[in-house]
């Protein structure tokens, strides 16, 4: 995970990249990522990969042991209307999470997946 992205996530991951306003979370969803297992994680940056492989789940307990999960946050800026999607790929381990990758999509790459 890049240092800049990590810092951004820790500090202002919900700030609009256009007008720097605080964005609203308009949608949240947890997904299982059955193609990624512990010990065999391969970094993926292509939104098409996530569109193809994410399986929506209600809660973390539904994700089998050793399978990666993905948290999706959809943001919308109340000032300029800019939208962004943050994907957090993590490994659920008992009551903790090992974050593997943070992805930001700000050009509507995930829109057809979210609003289908």
């Amino acid at each position: 995970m890049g240092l800049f992205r990590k810092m951004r996530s820790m500090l202002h991951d919900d700030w609009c990249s256009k007008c720097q306003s605080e964005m609203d979370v308009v949608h949240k969803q947890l997904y299982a990522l059955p193609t990624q297992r512990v010990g065999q994680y391969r970094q993926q940056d292509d939104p098409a990969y996530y569109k193809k492989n994410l399986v929506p789940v209600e809660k973390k307990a539904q994700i089998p042991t050793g399978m990666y999960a993905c948290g999706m946050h959809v943001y919308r800026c109340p000032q300029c209307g800019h939208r962004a999607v943050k994907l957090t790929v993590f490994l659920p381990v008992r009551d903790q999470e090992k974050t593997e990758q943070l992805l930001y999509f700000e050009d509507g790459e995930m829109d057809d997946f979210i609003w289908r």
Partner: protein
Amino acid sequence: MDKKIQKINYIYLLCYIFVPLMVVSAGFLLGYYLFHDGGVGAVVCFMGFPLVAILWWSFGGKLLYKQHCKKLIRELDERGFSRNQTFDGRGSTVVVDLNRGELALVFFWNPFDHYILPAKRIERAWVDDGAAGAGFLRGSSRVSFLFLIDGVKIRVDTFTSNKRWRMDSDYILTGISKADVMVDVLNQAKERSA
């Protein structure tokens, strides 16, 4: 199928340690008595023999173990064993067939033997996260999964380190997750075992 599990072949263990030592000693003796005045023979005896011993300790055991693992995999494939989950730990390899409810085991210190058993012989399987210490010192240097077969405890490490890591470190969490997966798989195999 019903033979008792032997994790360590003590004859092999002693040979592993002492045969190279004997080779080194033999080299020194030969060098001393036959090449007392030096020369190529002395170099071979005083350096070549110890080199062979060091190579054995460094690579020989591992090569032998890997060869046996490959042999086991070939045998499993011939028997129609579905390798649903394989875990290569330090010192042992566990292969599980969830369809038949069987598991196969091979140990580093017993590389001439392997075991293919019905998983119903597993009495218990659990995870040891190795957590020790209190407060901010709480951490671990080893995570493993363990299981009991016929009273023999088998420990397979999923993470080891020469330093202690915090319990929320990526290494420890990955080790715990791998161990949890293996315990789940062993329990599933046990349930499906005839």
